[in-house]
């Protein structure tokens, strides 16, 4: 299969979450015949089971398909699917650099949303040609005209170019395919120049080492070439190149304009950084591709095996997961309460949940996850500074602390105007500092706030959805550290401090938060045979208390012949839940308690 550049189209699909990216990709695969209808599981590009279950794309994926256009020629389409969640913005940006065009999807029933804009702007910034598509036109509540108007107002997109499609039924998809050929530019890199290829994704294969997904910008690469990764100077010999259709198909070489995979016996995924540039060792390109940055974890949490014997197993699970997930970082730590475990860094809360679920499902390990935290800066009076990832490392005694700071972000919320009040109240309660508000059209508003990241990463998005009946959408961008008066809040159960429940809280709302936390813990920690006091303290001062009453009845009234199996299964299930609990002294604390710490609403 050989295509000159004129017959290649590289494009990605960007959209707000749930606007139908993966479904449209499925439809394109089906229409171009890359996948037989019977092989078509819904959302074929989503490899991970969690992705399919949740209907969201986490790792991106690339596929090459051929399309016979109306002009009689056959074209090679390289399609790159992108993740649609705020946690994964960098992954979107790197896939954009590999393309000349982007299909921008808008859900016809919801209109333009915060990430339609965020991703749309990213695509325009990267110089991509936009093919605007309004999806889900089969639904009765769809409103194409409204979407067209919003697209002019926000991204200055010509309404005549907007294509109505239904990825579900296939309506309009053939029309879209023609426009990919007609409207999107062909790649233009010079195949005779030195190799310059962009890494936009990677995964680990136990037999071939790291498989790198690349877009060749200039030059070409073939089996046997000695390549260099420009940001980490690693030198490797290429063992295989090819394209994915979506099954892997070996090729002799990949040259300028093409998208495909490359294997070079690379042992560690951490040696391959997304956004890095590959060139030939003996004939290097002069400059790497711009835009490279190291992926930085934003949220840290402790992961501990429920059973301390599983420490090594957890370690190997994390190692295996990080083979395919360069954003996941971890290092060992110990907690008085939980024993030995790992402090792990994640892109955001979704990423954390995904990792947690994969450890439990794919490695069959029971784990405890402590309340996630952002990284705080503590500046001491002696001029030194410490970055605190683990709340338990935060000084209790603040006399030696000159100041503390935490990461802030610019937050952009798009919301129908009827919910502006609700959203503003929410932002205010989350220590948001109002910046601007402007109307996109007569019905919708963009609100901008500056807010501490710690207030955003946990349940802000869920709360935002609930105060706006699901209509609000969110995008945020980190702007750096700012001074913020935070303190360490400890929790005592039955008189004993549980280091794993320690959190860092904003001093101004510490009392309200403490009350909410102890009340919540009272609800999630199961009753035991004795009464358990739950106390929150700052320093040595107790600022809130709630008591868990002793259990009074739990026995089954009747247990005769037919009840035995049922009762046993019930107890076994409870026991399973109990095994996931951690014992602090005599108190058993379920996993939810750690998360509950952060999802409490101190304003209720």
């Amino acid at each position, binding site marked *: 299969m050989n295509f000159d550049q004129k017959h290649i189209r590289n494009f990605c699909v960007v959209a707000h979450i749930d606007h139908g990216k993966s479904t449209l990709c499925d439809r394109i695969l089906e229409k171009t015949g890359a996948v037989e209808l019977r092989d078509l599981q819904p959302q074929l590009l989503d490899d991970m089971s969690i992705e399919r279950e949740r209907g969201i794309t986490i790792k991106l994926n690339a596929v090459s398909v051929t399309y016979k256009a109306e002009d009689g020629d056959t074209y090679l389409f390289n399609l790159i699917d992108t993740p649609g969640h705020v946690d994964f913005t960098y992954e979107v940006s790197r896939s954009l650099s590999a393309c000349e065009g982007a299909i921008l999807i808008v859900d016809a029933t919801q209109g333009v949303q915060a990430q339609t804009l965020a991703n749309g702007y990213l695509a325009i910034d990267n110089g991509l040609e936009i093919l605007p598509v309004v999806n889900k036109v089969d639904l009765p509540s769809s409103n194409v005209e409204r979407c067209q108007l919003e697209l002019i107002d926000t991204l200055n997109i010509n309404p005549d170019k907007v294509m109505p499609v239904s990825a579900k039924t296939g309506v309009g998809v053939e029309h879209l395919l023609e426009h990919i050929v007609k409207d999107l530019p062909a790649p233009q890199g010079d195949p005779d120049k030195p190799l310059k290829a962009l890494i936009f994704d990677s995964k680990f294969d136990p037999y071939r080492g790291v498989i790198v997904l690349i877009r060749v910008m200039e030059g070409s690469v073939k089996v046997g070439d000695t390549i260099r990764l420009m940001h980490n100077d690693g030198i490797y010999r290429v063992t295989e190149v090819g394209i994915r259709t979506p099954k892997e198909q070996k090729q002799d070489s990949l040259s300028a304009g093409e998208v495909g995979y490359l294997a070079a016996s690379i042992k560690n995924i951490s040696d391959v950084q997304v956004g890095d540039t590959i060139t030939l060792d003996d004939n290097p390109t002069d400059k790497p591709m711009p835009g490279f940055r190291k992926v930085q974890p934003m949220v840290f949490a402790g992961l501990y095996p429920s059973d301390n014997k599983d420490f090594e197993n957890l370690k190997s699970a994390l190692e295996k997961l990080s083979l395919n997930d360069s954003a996941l970082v971890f290092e060992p730590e110990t907690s008085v309460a939980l024993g030995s475990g790992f402090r792990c860094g994640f892109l955001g809360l979704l990423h954390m949940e995904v990792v947690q679920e994969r450890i439990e499902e794919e490695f069959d390990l029971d784990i405890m996850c402590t309340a996630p935290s952002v990284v705080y800066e503590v500046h001491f009076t002696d001029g030194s500074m410490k970055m605190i990832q683990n709340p338990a490392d935060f000084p209790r005694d603040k006399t030696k602390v000159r100041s503390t700071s935490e990461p802030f972000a610019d937050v952009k919320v798009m919301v129908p105007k009827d919910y502006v009040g609700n959203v503003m109240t929410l932002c205010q309660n989350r220590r948001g500092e109002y910046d601007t508000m402007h109307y996109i059209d007569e019905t919708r508003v963009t609100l901008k706030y500056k807010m501490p990241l710690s207030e955003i990463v946990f349940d802000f998005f869920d709360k935002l959805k609930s105060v706006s009946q699901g209509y609000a959408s969110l995008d945020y961008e980190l702007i750096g550290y700012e001074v913020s008066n935070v303190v360490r809040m400890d929790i005592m159960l039955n008189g004993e401090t549980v280091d794993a429940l320690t959190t860092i809280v904003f001093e101004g709302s510490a009392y309200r938060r403490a009350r909410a936390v102890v009340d919540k813990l009272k609800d999630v920690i199961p009753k035991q045979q004795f009464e358990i006091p739950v106390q929150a303290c700052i320093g040595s001062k107790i600022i809130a208390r709630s008591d868990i009453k002793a*259990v009074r009845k*739990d026995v*089954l*009234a009747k247990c005769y012949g037919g009840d*035995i199996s049922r009762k*046993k299964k019930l107890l076994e299930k409870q026991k399973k839940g109990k095994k996931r609990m951690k014992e602090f002294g005599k108190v058993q604390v379920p996993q939810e308690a750690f998360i509950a710490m952060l999802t409490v609403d101190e304003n209720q």
Partner: protein
Amino acid sequence: MRPKSLYIHIPFCEKICAYCDFAKVMNGTFSHMKYLANLLKELEEEEIPFDSLKTIYIGGGTPSCLTLDELDLLLSYLYEHFPSVEEFTLEANPESLDKDKIRLCQMYGVNRISLGAQAASDDILKTLNRNHRMKDLIRCCDDLHELHFDNFNLDFIYGLPGMTKKDLDDDIELSLKLKSKHLSYYSLQIEKGTMFYNKHIKAQDDEVMREMYDYLIKKLHEAGFERYEVSNFAIPGYESRHNLTYWHDEPYYAVGLSASGYINQTRFTNTHSMTKYMKGLTDRATEEISSKSEEFEFLMLNLRLVSGFSLDKFKERFHKDFLVSYQKEIKKVEEYVQVKDGYFAIKPEYLYTMDHILLELLK
């Protein structure tokens, strides 16, 4: 171990009680005789040795809603086939147990009756959707005494919403007045699919239940009834031997619609579908009990008994010393359990919260 007990299920009912989640069918929708024929066929297939049974329990449903002739057929069959039975219980509802049926029972060796009394108030009986009223219960117990059938049990329910201490006092007073030898007091438990469940009725909260329970134990004790299992009280010597089979975790046969048995390390449950059963299909769902599971079932059941279990018996059955093998687990619950005269038991005051203790003992 060869089973020494047999459970027989008779699913017919005149009226469906609001709390009941047992398998039952409205009387008149299926032929009793045809059901009995299938039942006896199933029984024959079990090939129960002639002299092996010590207890039989006919439960339901409402076994007493069989006619005299039907009852005659069933009881005479059992009487002829299992002469070694020592305790033979028939479950009955007061309105459908008359002198003729009692005499029939006596003739065929039925020596224990379990009556669904449930409450000492017609209003509560109505709420429970019971088919009998107070007068039926009093009449039935009078008949039993008159025919010198003294060994009977009364079932009561407590913890209905709105039930007061006075109601409980009335129940206790009535149960003592009727001079039974055995009492079962069950806390109301709302099961899925029951009328109460569908009406979103909630039982009283645990705190109230606990108060009622503690009060019951005290009152019944004063009257000579000893609690021997979580919900069961008896004049000493009148404990239900059949039910002790379950709590001792011993094997038992079972026949009839949705009946559950335990034979050769395997628990089974017959089909819940009357249509299937009437076609002669039992469609047994079986579960083989692993030795680990068996140990847990043993604890789960035996610890319902105030006496707990004999450490020797544990050793004989599982070939290990309970106190050694469960040392770590026992340590966690040491305040709530006791070892006395070679028996391991939950302290009586913790019986009502025994699930918490079991969960610690479950390995």
